[in-house]
């Protein structure tokens, strides 16, 4: 193809004949792929987005959803061969997708400045001119902001600092800001898991706004985890799995079972993780634990047991680990290790009682990236290395470091290298080893393999199972249902702050966990609760 024209970009002509009677699509994605070293995050993805339509894209973590959003936003470049086209301002033809001014994104981080009012936040989005140095009319600006919000069907006090608004209201402000200055009503909105931080029942506010925007002629891409939300808002749904579109149909044509099956995939082979657990006494006892989202959770984990906690973002799953460990103060309830009650927010007491936490945010909470491997490994239990007067004999510490480096097979095994110079998987091995060194009675893991490559993942699972065999009670909080299915003897599912189900033993499969997590209202045939 075009042998003599190497180096000249080749743009296939767009044929309008295959466009259905909906008219010209607002957004056309054709054969878009994206390869990262070792993985193919997106594989020939094609879809169209039409006027007045809400198109939902669903899929598990790592299915390619966020890669798709990042390609649309221009963060990643797609592999050569794919093309993205956006409708031209006249609404008649399609332009090459580098014209991103028609695409508007609402990410989970809304990018609002909390101290400023809604009006001021909306003003910030406008281009600045010399006119802005002149005194402006406050009242006029407030009226303009109110009118903008009214287009999204919302009534918000525009003079209040954004910090005082609820998460849903803030999202609507971001929505209004994205739509500010649209010359045509047919822009494209991309909402990336917008409801994750919402309080209960707030989502309807946003959905009304989104429907209003779509009704005025815009196209909306709605990225979500939750099947009930997709039913509430989307016209069409695309299911991504392993970077490919595995299902595309109008929402009303697919029942939940079909969707879940499409999300998880057919190949649900039985896990070979040994479940012949010799369970001991109750090690961790959590009673009526409550926090910002979590509203009273009770849980018991026995020695040798690996218990998983599942739930979508916002279910309370993401704050369970910090609450149990005391990294965050709890609002109610109690946590006890081997019968010893732990004070709220008392990390040192938790560690003294034999607890360890591998936090979800490795860079901020888990690892000290500026310190080297040896220093990170020994940090949680310096007492065992230190000699009289707090002296740390280097030889003893080196021996300890090399012992644990080989135990977790750190690559490369350099104890004096700063942690920042290791891959995510190897950093996580060090954080895990730091706690395994303390021979914990209770090990709390929050997203233990987030940002970890496949090889390191297997190694980490083996380390966790090994710790359980030695009598550690393990709590795994994870958004990765596959991980929970592979690792856990028992999985508790949270939704909106409450336990909605529990799966035990052979019932713990990826499909059953996902089923419960995504749509807790489904009939729970295999639920032991």
């Amino acid at each position, binding site marked *: 193809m075009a042998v003599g024209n190497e180096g000249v970009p080749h743009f296939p002509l767009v044929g309008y004949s295959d466009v259905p009677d909906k008219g010209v699509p607002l957004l056309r994605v054709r054969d878009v792929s994206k390869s990262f070293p070792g993985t193919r995050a997106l594989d020939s993805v094609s879809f169209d987005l039409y006027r007045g339509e809400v198109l939902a894209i669903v899929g598990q973590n790592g299915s390619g959803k966020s890669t798709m959003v990042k390609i649309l936003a221009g963060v990643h470049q797609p592999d050569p061969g794919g093309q993205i086209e956006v409708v031209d301002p006249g609404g008649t033809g399609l332009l090459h997708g580098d014209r991103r001014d028609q695409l508007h994104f609402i990410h989970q981080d809304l990018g609002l400045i909390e101290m400023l009012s809604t009006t001021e936040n909306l003003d910030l989005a406008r281009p600045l001119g010399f006119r802005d140095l002149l005194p402006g009319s406050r009242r006029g600006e407030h009226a303009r902001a109110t009118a903008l919000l009214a287009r999204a069907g919302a009534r918000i006090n525009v003079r209040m600092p954004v910090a005082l608004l609820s998460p849903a209201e803030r999202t609507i402000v971001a929505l209004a800001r994205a739509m500010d200055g649209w010359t045509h009503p047919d822009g494209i909105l991309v909402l990336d898991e917008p409801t994750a931080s919402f309080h209960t029942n707030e989502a309807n506010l946003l959905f009304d706004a989104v429907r209003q925007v779509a009704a005025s002629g815009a196209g909306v891409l709605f990225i979500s985890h939750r099947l009930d939300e997709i039913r509430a808002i989307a016209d069409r749904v695309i299911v991504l799995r392993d970077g490919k579109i595995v299902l595309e149909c109008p929402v009303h044509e697919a029942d939940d079972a079909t969707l879940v099956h499409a999300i998880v995939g057919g190949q649900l082979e039985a896990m070979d993780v040994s479940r012949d657990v010799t369970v001991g006494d109750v090690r961790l006892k959590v009673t009526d634990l409550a926090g910002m989202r979590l509203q009273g959770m009770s849980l018991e984990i026995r020695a040798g047991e690996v218990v998983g906690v599942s739930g979508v973002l916002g279910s309370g799953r993401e704050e369970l680990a910090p609450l149990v460990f005391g990294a965050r103060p709890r609002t109610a309830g109690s946590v006890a290790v081997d019968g010893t009650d732990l004070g709220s927010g008392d990390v040192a007491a938790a560690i003294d009682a034999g607890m360890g936490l591998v936090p979800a945010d490795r860079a*901020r909470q888990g690892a*000290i*990236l*500026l310190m080297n491997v040896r220093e990170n490994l020994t940090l*949680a239990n310096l007492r065992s290395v230190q000699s009289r007067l*707090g*002296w740390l004999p280097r030889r003893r510490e080196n021996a300890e470091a090399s012992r644990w480096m080989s135990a977790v097979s750190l690559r490369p095994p350099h104890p004096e290298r700063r942690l920042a110079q290791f891959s995510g998987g190897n950093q996580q091995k060090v954080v895990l080893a730091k706690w395994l060194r303390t021979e914990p009675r209770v090990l709390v893991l929050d997203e233990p393999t987030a940002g970890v490559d496949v090889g390191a993942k297997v190694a980490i699972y083996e380390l966790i199972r090994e710790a359980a065999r030695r009598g550690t009670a393990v709590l795994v909080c994870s958004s990765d249902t596959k991980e929970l299915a592979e690792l856990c003897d028992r999985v508790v599912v949270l939704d909106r702050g409450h336990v909605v189900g529990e799966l035990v033993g052979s019932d713990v499969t990826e499909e059953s966990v996902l089923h419960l997590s995504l749509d807790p209202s489904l009939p729970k045939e295999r639920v032991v609760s």
Partner: protein
Amino acid sequence: MTTGVQAGSTEDNDGVTSAQQRAHLPEGPTRWSKFKRDASFRNVSGLYIIAIMIVIFWIWEPNTFMTSLSWKLLLDNQAISAIVAVTVVVPLSAGIVDLAVGAEVGLGSILVAWFITDRSLSIPLSITLALVAGAVVGVIVTLLVVKARINSFIATLAMSSILLAVITWIGGGESILVSSLSFAKIATGELFGIVYPVYFAAIISLVIWYVLEHTSYGRRVYATGANPEAARLAGIRTSRVILGATVTCGVLTAFAGVLTASQLSTGDPTISSGFLLPAFAAAFLGSTQFKGGRFNVGGTLVAVALLAIGVEGLSLGGAPVWTPNMFNGVVLLLAVGFAQVQRSPRKRTAAISRVINSLGVRQKG
């Protein structure tokens, strides 16, 4: 080890040696490369610069610069500055920017003079009380930072202003003379021809170095400074670590104040400002030495020496009065900037890194 044994079986004569060599193989080259890395310009640039400066000044001013008298004066003058500089390393390592160190020195100085002259207390008691006052300042700083959650930069800036007010209040804005000769002896007495403060500086540096680098307390200090949240979640009681650091800082700076008062035989209310900037300059400059970005005692001492020798050489050579300040500022910017360029891999410094790399390649070829 198995490969070593096989090698032994094939090479009869020096089988044992080769096995040993193989066993040591991972160590031998690393030891040499470790030495090369430790002695590299980027790791200890300060030592090389000192050496270059000494040669230059020696050639420039052979009659004054290389005399034992000028070196002795250099040591005498810098001992107290060195104490303050290595003291600042402690809170900085714990993540606390203590801008009140200058005022803390001033407070120690005026207090000890006030206790001795105005209150007629004994010298040991006066010194002890001055040190206790320093400790109290440290406690207050920790309370402000940990309990009131005020950024240490702001808290100590305010603290500095308050301490300056206290200093003026105590002395009525004037110097307090101390006539006691035995008090003056503390900073001016000599052992083997070197004044006592040099020994104090050496002992304090040694102790801080040992505690920071070789004890679990020091490890906790560095962890708290590098990532307070991760340190807390590893079970480190970070507020206690910070308390230890600020109290140490308060006591040692007050001691530096006592030495200053003894040196001048006066509690001088105006000395505070002279200590803050040099101490921080030395600590920051020192952080680019040896440990590559970590505050450390050895690097700080090298920095103190570098700045002092540079300023001394320039003034002996008859440079104008504004050169010392200019020299301090330029050296600090160059050293820290250079370390920054080497550490950040891409982006802003890509062009410079490429130049450095291409130089390296050319040298090899």
